């Protein structure tokens, strides 16, 4: 259980220079990939949320399962896209975390 001061990340038992460099590289790579994915998912979120509202009057002409498309997007579609985005994020981040730990694992 972490206590009040923010704990510094502990390095592997031998504070070797090579390990520190590897850690920094792996972290930078992990953060870069996290950021890129977040940005991509936010772009999807922005288009489905705000984009469909902005063009709602034009989209009302199309129909999905009885709903006018713009009504469907506002009532269900945008929310379903949001929950999918969050699911993809959680799943992909787990992969990224695993890749990070694989990169940091002692090499044979």
């Amino acid at each position, binding site marked *: *259980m*972490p206590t*009040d001061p*923010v*704990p*510094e*990340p502990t390095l592997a038992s031998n504070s070797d220079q090579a390990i520190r460099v590897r850690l920094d590289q792996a*972290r930078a790579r*992990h*953060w870069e990939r*996290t*950021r890129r994915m*977040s940005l991509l*998912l*936010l772009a999807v*979120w922005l288009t489905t*949320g*705000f984009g469909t*509202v*902005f063009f*709602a*009057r034009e989209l*009302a002409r199309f129909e*999905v*399962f*009885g*709903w*006018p498309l*713009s*009504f*469907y997007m*506002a*009532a*269900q579609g*945008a*929310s*379903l896209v*949001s*929950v999918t*985005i*969050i*699911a993809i*994020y*959680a799943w992909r*981040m*787990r992969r*990224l*975390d695993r890749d*990070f*730990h694989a990169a940091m694992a002692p090499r044979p």
Partner: protein
Amino acid sequence: MSTNPATGVKHGYFKKLSRYYLWYTGAFALFLVAVALLEQEGMPRLWIGYLFMFATIALYAVIGVICRTSNVTEYYVAGRRVPAMFNGMATAADWISAASFISLAGGLYLQGFDGLAFIMGWTGGFVLVALLIAPYLRKFAQYTVPDFLAARYGGGAGGRGGPVRALAVGATILVSFTYVVAQIYAVGLIASRFTGVDFSVGIFLGLASILVCSFLGGMRAITWTQVAQYIILLVAFLIPTMWLSVKHADNPIPQVAYGSLLPKLTAREAELANDPREAQVRAEFLRRADGYAARVAALPESWEAGKLDAQRQLAAARARNASLLEVRQAERALTTYPNSVDDARTLWLERRDANLARARPPEPHAQPFPGATQEASDARRNNFLAVVFCLMFGTAALPHILMRAYTTPSVHETRVSVFWTLFFILLIYLTIPALTVLAKYDIYTSLVGSDFSALPTWISYWANVDKANPLISVADINGDGIVQLAEFAIDADVLVLATPEIGGLPYVISGLVAAGGLAAALSTADGLLLAISNALSHDVYYKMVEPGASTQKRVTISKLLLLAVAFIAAYVASQKPADILSLVAAAFSLAGSTLFPVLVLGVFWKRANHIGAITGMVTGFAVCLYYMLRASPALGGNALETWFGILPMAAGVFGVPAGLFTVVVVSLLTPRPSRASAGMVDYIRAPE
């Protein structure tokens, strides 16, 4: 007991919890069946109301007593061992407020497409929570949102971030307090309508259950109570909607079924819009509106003439020895007559607008942004977008939701927990537009066109609940003995509560819906009160006033503060301030403008420093508040003084960018943050 090393979840624990809640759900179903049987045996309605109210409140209190604790980690963050799914369920209950449960479907009924802004805003915001804030807060692993901001930005005496913390605490308290007052108000409303107790008695009954729960066990108790409350509110919302769905679309899944009903509703709307009798009623309302307009135009003479007239009528009634009823009516007309010319102007303008509103033909439910001109239509679209924006960014900055990120066993579990949160919210939120369409179709087809002598009982029941502001009003305006749509008015707060009766379900389902509304209000109030008292006890008392306090003392102080805040909130709610939905929407704009910029830039931009954070929070808050005061007539502003025609409720659309901009500019103009701050950002970004 085996522990998954990646997620930190103990499997046996999860299984045990699932078993408990399955038993609980089964027992609740039995309880419903038992009450339904009692109703068959002739138990009066009032008793059913009492039974639901007291049984559920007692249930929450029992869970609170079982989960009592004095341990700091248990009290503040439920021991950080709540599995993702249960954390998601509890957060969903925390999130689904009285406004969502009771007023949202009614709002959609009245506003049509425009109301969907609330559905979009209140769900889309969780993308921001999941991607930008929650996992990083969990990695940081402290107790409150101000904790995070103070550690990230530092500054102040000894670099401990005192000023940033103080501002964050202020924002937390202000936002949560506005919101909690609305919840307690709703508790009083539901209790008084279903059990007939006085409004203030209802408030204090609800308060008692909130207190037993959060007072004894803090976050731990409210988490497990909220899971129980979620189950009740889900069942309460789904049963009547599924019933209506089977009735009108032969399909028990309302979210799918109402697609086939929407074209029928649109056809019925077109039919009613061209009905000559509807036009007759609307013309009558227009005539009444013109009458009020003429009286306003003739002020002050019309005020004096009206007063003399009222006096003369009373004297005449007495002189001719009229019936007691007539004399009473004449007396009431005189006593309620406006006291001054100014009062008369306000009242008559209000009545003119009310009549004008009812003189308009109904708007098609599914059509986006209907408007007479392109500009009017564009203005509605822009306001829709602005409301969605505010609700989304406000969601991502609400302290009582964000502090949930601390309660899971790992960062991964926090990410999954946000998924479950939105999943459980959507079970309700995707049903709300369905319920609206189903109820609207029912009213448009079976009530409209029926005979005045055969009105269903729910109409007279709800029309008589609140005599001063009737929740439902229906009167034969054109005297043809048939109900026209224009003759029927319904308040947004009633639709969900009346749905079981509209659909012709037994009263036990009405009791269940009331219990669901109560659960929604209580669960949100629990979370909010805890957010406030934690900010006061942990951030103000422990971090700023007495850092040496023992853990025992910290928890005790927190409990005492909770008690005090709860009573103040109940007192404010008993004064009946403005209506529920407008209060809540204001809280979202303020939260988003003040906290969102510093939270997100704190994680994603290392260069942001404490001076930028302080000025950013102050600017965001000030811009948002200024706009509300300027443009909201309810707060003393002028409705014409808007920027780009944006409604004051959506003030966050200016506040959030102002806050972001200020943090960036001021940070760039002032020195870099300390190395400790950069180290902390590296730490929270790094994987576990």
